[in-house]
C-alpha cells in the first residue's frame, strides 16, 4: 500500500467516522494489506468494518512515519562574541528568582557590566518574566544580546508589552531601594563595622520581623566586600536571641549576593 493511498483512504474514513455508518457508506480499502485484512477477517456490520479499517490504517500510518517535506532553516541571529555566563550563574539566577528577586536587577546589570552574556536557556524564562516591565525587559535584552531579540521575534508570546522605549538611564542604573536612616551609613561602611553593628543589634533583639524589608534592602545594596563578614556575624547571632531567625534569613541573602558577584567577576 503506498503512503499516498493510505493517506487518501484515511481521509475517506474520517468522513465516515464523523457522519457515522448509519448515514455514510464505508469506502472500499485500497488494494494491498488493508484490503487483504478486510477480506481475511470479514466483519458483520458497517460500523465494525469501519473500526477494523480505522485501527489498521492508524497502525499503518503510525508505523510508517517518515520525515515530511524539507523546511527552510531560519536565519540565525547576529553573532555575539561575549562569553556565556558560567553554569553556576545560571543556577544562581534560578535561586534568585525563586527566593531573593531583589537581586535580579543587579544580576542582570553585573552580567552586562562584566562582559558576559546570559546563557541561552535563561532567555525564554527571562523574557517571559519581564514581558510587561519595559525597563527590566530592556535590561534582559542587553544582557542576553541579539539572540534574545531574535528569539522574541520568532515567539510572539515573548514579545514586549506596549512597545514604548524605556529610559536608557533607568535601564543602566541599579534601582534605589528604601533603607531607613539609621541603617543608611552601613551601605558604605567598612566590612568590620557593618558586621559589628548588625550583629550587635541582632544579639540585642533589636530587629523585629517587620524589619526584614529594610534589612534586605540594606544587604542588597551594601558594599560587596562586606557581605562575607556580615553573613558570618549574623550566622553567629546568639542562640537565644529572638532575632535569630531574621538574622539567618538575612545572612542567606548576603551569602547569595556574594556568590552571585563572585561568579560574575570579570574574566
Amino acid at each position, binding site marked *: 500500500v503506498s503512503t499516498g493511498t493510505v493517506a487518501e483512504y484515511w481521509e475517506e474514513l*474520517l468522513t*465516515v*467516522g*464523523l*457522519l*457515522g*455508518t*448509519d*448515514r*455514510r457508506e464505508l469506502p472500499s480499502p485500497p488494494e494491498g494489506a488493508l484490503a487483504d485484512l478486510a477480506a481475511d477477517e470479514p466483519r458483520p*456490520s*458497517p*460500523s*465494525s468494518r*469501519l*473500526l*477494523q479499517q*480505522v*485501527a*489498521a*490504517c*492508524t*497502525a499503518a*500510518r*503510525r*508505523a*510508517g*512515519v*517518515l*520525515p*515530511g*517535506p*524539507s*523546511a*527552510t*532553516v*531560519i*536565519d*540565525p*541571529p547576529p553573532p555575539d562574541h561575549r562569553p556565556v555566563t558560567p*553554569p553556576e550563574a545560571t543556577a544562581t539566577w*534560578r535561586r534568585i*528568582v*525563586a527566593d531573593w528577586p531583589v537581586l535580579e536587577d543587579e544580576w542582570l546589570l553585573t552580567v552586562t557590566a562584566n562582559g558576559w552574556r546570559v546563557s*541561552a*536557556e535563561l*532567555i*525564554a*524564562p527571562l*523574557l*517571559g*518574566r519581564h514581558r510587561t516591565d519595559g525597563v527590566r525587559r530592556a535590561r534582559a535584552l542587553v544582557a542576553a544580546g541579539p*539572540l*534574545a531579540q*531574535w*528569539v522574541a521575534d*520568532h*515567539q510572539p*508570546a*515573548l514579545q514586549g508589552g506596549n512597545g514604548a522605549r524605556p529610559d536608557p538611564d533607568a535601564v543602566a542604573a541599579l534601582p534605589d531601594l528604601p533603607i531607613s536612616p539609621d541603617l543608611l551609613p552601613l551601605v558604605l561602611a567598612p566590612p568590620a563595622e557593618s558586621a559589628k553593628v548588625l550583629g550587635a543589634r541582632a544579639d540585642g533583639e533589636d530587629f523585629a520581623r517587620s524589619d526584614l524589608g529594610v534589612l534586605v534592602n540594606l544587604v542588597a545594596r551594601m558594599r560587596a566586600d562586606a557581605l562575607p563578614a556580615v553573613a558570618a556575624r549574623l550566622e553567629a547571632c546568639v542562640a537565644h536571641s529572638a532575632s535569630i531567625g531574621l538574622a539567618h534569613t538575612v545572612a542567606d541573602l548576603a551569602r547569595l549576593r556574594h556568590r552571585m558577584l563572585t561568579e560574575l567577576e570579570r574574566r
Partner: protein
Amino acid sequence: MGVSGQRWAVEQVFALARRPSIIAGATAAAVPVLWTSLGCDDRAVWGRYRGSSAEPYDVVADHVEVATRCTCPSRVAPCKHALALLLLWARGQVPQSAIGGSAAAWIDSRRSAAVATPTPAPSPAPSTADAPTPPDPPEPSSRDDRVARMAAGLAELDRWLDDRLRTGLTDPALARYSTWDDLAARLVDAQAGGLANRVRRLAGAVGSAPEWHRHVLAEMGVLHLIARAGGRLRELPPGLGDSVAMAAGWQVRQADVLAGVPETDTWLVLGRSDTREDRIEVRRMWIRGERRGRWAMLLSFAAYRQSLDDSVEVGTRFPADLYRYPGTHALRAILGLRHGAPEPAVHPPGASLTEACAAVGSVVADEPWIEHLAFTVSAAPARLGGRWVLADRSGSLPMVASPAELATLLACSGGTPVVITCEWTPSGVRPLTVHLPDRTVDIGPRADPSFVSGGWSVAS
C-alpha cells in the same frame, strides 16, 4: 487469601474511583485530623471519619480482596470516605494495630463467606496502565478470574466503540464527559485501568482542537486493537501478549520484574517528560544504555502535593542494573543496584530524522498502542506551513511544544542543527533535551509546581 497486605500506591486507590469527583472528595477527606481510631493490619484498614453528620462514619476496607464498607448514606461504592481511608493508608498515615469491633466482625464475615464460597476468586488490587505494581501475587484462580473479567470488559469496550462509529463522532453524546466516564468506570471494574485512563484522556480531546476528530478516531482504532488483542491473549506470542495485557492495564508485580535478569550497563539520562493524566502527574525519564544502545523508560507518579522521583538527572550517566517489564520491546523498567555515582554525560550522537523514523516505526509496528518513544537526533528548529518542525537534510517532523519550550530550543540552537532528545507521540515530536557541547539543557514539559511538591519553577 488472594494477595497479602502490602501497601498500595496512591494511583491504585484512585483507580477504584467511579468518578473523578469522588477522587477530589476523597483527597479532601484524606486528612488524618478528620479521622479517629485509625488502624490497619495485613488484611484491612479501618477508621472513623468525622464528617458533617452528628455521628462519625465507620469505614473499613479490605485491601486484600478489595472491598469497602462505610456507614455514610452514599450509594456509590467505594464512597469518598473509603477512598480517603485507603489514601491515608497508601501514604503511610495509618498505624498498625489489632483489628476489633465492627471492622473485625465485617472482615470475619468476609473470611467466612470466602471459605463457604471458594469461587469466584478474590479480585486483586485495582490498577492503572502505568501505575506502580499491585501488592502481591494473585493465585492462579484469581488470575483466571481477572483475565475473564478483563476479557468481558474489553468486549464491552469494543461494542461501545462500534456503537459510536455507527452514529458518528458528531453525535452530541460524544461531547458529554459522562458518555466516556461511564465506560471508563466499567473498565475499572473490569480491571482494565490502563484503558480506563486512556478513555478518560480521549474524552478530554473531544472538541479540544479544530482537528480533534482525527486524533479521536485514530485513538478509537487503537482502543479497538487493544480490545481485540486483549480478548485473545492466550493465542498471542508471549512478548506481544505481555505488551497487550500491560496496555490494557494488567499489572506486573514489581517483585516479579526485580526477579528477572538485570541488564547492566552505563545509563545515559537523556530526557524527562512530565504529563498530567487525569489526577496524577506522570514522569517519564528516558535513559539509554551506552554499551547496548537500548532505550528504557523509568516511570514515576505523584498525586496532589506528592513528589515525583528526581533520583536521576538529565545530563548524567551512571552504571546500574536495570530490570525490564515484560513486553515485545520492554521499554518500561526499574532501576536496580547502582554501581557508581552519577557523573556528567558525554555529548550523545544524534541520528538523522530518517533513522529516527525508522526506529520509531519498527517499535510502533509491533506495538501500535505505544504513545511515547524517545530518540536523539541532530536537527534544527524550522518553520513549515505556519508551524514549527524539526528539520534536517532528510526532511522534517512536526513538533508539539509549549511556547516556552520552543523558545528555549530556539535560543539553545540559534536556528542551527543541534543534538536533541525528543519524545515521539502520535501528534508530533516533543523536544525534551538539547545536548550542547558543554552542557545539557532539560527543556521537557515540567510538572505544575502548584500540584506536585519539590523542583523549581520560573514563571515564563
